[in-house]
């Protein structure tokens, strides 16, 4: 936080000069309370010859919203995809460095990727519900993951239905969609509005009880009302989940996040600090130029 200086005595010009020197080019200074949920060290990503992320180290605290901002092509989405190893699917992507999830290295050979992606859910820019009913969208993953018993005895005792109902209601309520769809759960999800579809995707992600939710510009294709609902939802989700949001919307990052990481061209992480600090008084001149619209 800013210093409070009371009536500085002595050589004021020296003090002033010292303050000038404090303006840094890079500033990664966020003290995470307790163990971080995700700890990234010296992460580098290449797509073929092109380096998308350059030597990034960052700790993401538990149960909070971390915003990632920066100009297009600076590696924000690449960074996000590294956290649940979605970049593995890109043929010429090469990843170097370490990402620890609750202290466990995720870039190790024997890691269960299905389990990792259950724990680290993702919501994309454009809502992408399956062309199925609202109910089937939410229950698709829990059924696949075996959360809902399929054996005959459970079925005849009616327990399967009850479990499904519980998961469906809980997920849709958490995604603030329950009241709007509770009477049409078997309607096709594609009939929902854009904002509702996006919240359905969040409900779908919540249905498998993740620990981290990655969001890549989750509200950029939505109108202001739907955007506001998604933002409220993100803030309330952070009470129980660790949320990481990539956004181009500066004000959105300022409104919803606890800490903000600023990536700049070349895949560099230039500043990482409390959101209020970043938007009131960033340390880096380059970050200040970017967020005030005087850069690039």
């Amino acid at each position: 936080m800013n210093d409070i200086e009371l009536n500085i005595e002595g050589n004021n010009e020296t003090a002033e000069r010292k303050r000038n020197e404090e303006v840094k080019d890079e500033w990664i200074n966020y003290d995470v309370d307790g163990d971080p949920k995700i700890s990234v060290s010296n992460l580098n990503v290449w797509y073929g010859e092109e380096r998308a992320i350059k030597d990034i180290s960052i700790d993401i605290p538990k149960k909070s919203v971390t915003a990632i901002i920066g100009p297009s092509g600076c590696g924000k989405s690449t960074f996000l995809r590294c956290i649940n190893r979605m970049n593995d699917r890109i043929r010429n992507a090469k990843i170097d460095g370490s990402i620890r999830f609750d202290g466990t290295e995720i870039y190790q050979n024997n890691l269960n990727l299905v389990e990792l992606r259950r724990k680290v859910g993702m919501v994309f820019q454009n809502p992408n519900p399956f062309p199925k009913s609202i109910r089937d969208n939410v229950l698709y993953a829990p059924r696949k993951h075996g959360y809902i018993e399929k054996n005959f005895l459970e079925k005849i005792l009616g327990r399967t239905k009850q479990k499904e109902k519980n998961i469906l209601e809980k997920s849709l309520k958490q995604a603030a969609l329950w009241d709007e769809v509770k009477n049409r759960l078997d309607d096709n999800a594609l009939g929902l509005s854009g904002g509702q579809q996006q919240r359905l995707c969040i409900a779908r992600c919540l249905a498998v009880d993740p620990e981290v939710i990655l969001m890549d510009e989750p509200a950029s294709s939505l109108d202001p009302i739907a955007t506001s609902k998604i933002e409220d939802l993100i803030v309330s989700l952070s009470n129980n989940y660790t949320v990481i949001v990539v956004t181009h919307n500066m004000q959105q990052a300022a409104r919803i996040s606890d800490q903000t990481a600023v990536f700049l061209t070349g895949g560099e992480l230039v500043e990482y600090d409390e959101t209020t600090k970043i938007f009131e008084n960033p340390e880096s001149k380059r970050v200040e130029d970017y967020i005030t619209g005087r850069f690039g």
Partner: protein
Amino acid sequence: MVKGEIKFEERLNKVKKDVLEMSNLSKKSISSTNNLINEFSEEKFNEVLEIEEKSNILNLDVENGCMELTALHQPVARDLRFTASMMKISDNYERICDLAEKIAYLSKERKKINPPKNIEKMQKKLVKMLELLEKSLKEEKTEKLWELSDIDDEIDKLFDSVHNELEKGMKKGESIKPSTDLLFIARYLERAGDITCKIGSRIIYMKKGKRVRIK
């Protein structure tokens, strides 16, 4: 540069221009009070009143300019600090013009007794402080602002001496009303010095983002 950016810069410049005008007005206003204290002139009295009126209007212009900047451009970082600080600084200048107006009224109603010499010294030091602020705002440099603290201390000491001198005079039997009027005048000048320090602190915050207190 896109169209929106030009407008944004223009708005910032307009607010800054208005605040510089406020600075100029408050300096003029305090300078005029000197003549009033020593020898009352109707012309100077009206000038101070006119300045006070102008400063009220200009202060509203600054406020509106800052509100528009906030509503239309959602400023962040240095632009946010600029917008928030300019509103405060403008308010403070307006307050100095109010104090000058109070001094003008007291001078008008005051029965003639020779004012303590230190009142004039206080007034001159205050003008120096206001000049320092104006220069700092114009050039956007903060180095010299720390001098405000020393000048303010000198003003405080001068106020104490004025206070003592007038108190002694009253004890000796000088009329109470003109002496208390002069005491109020000195008090208003001292208060204007404090406000000037607050403006200085604000300019440092605006430029550096550091919360400092010049006092």
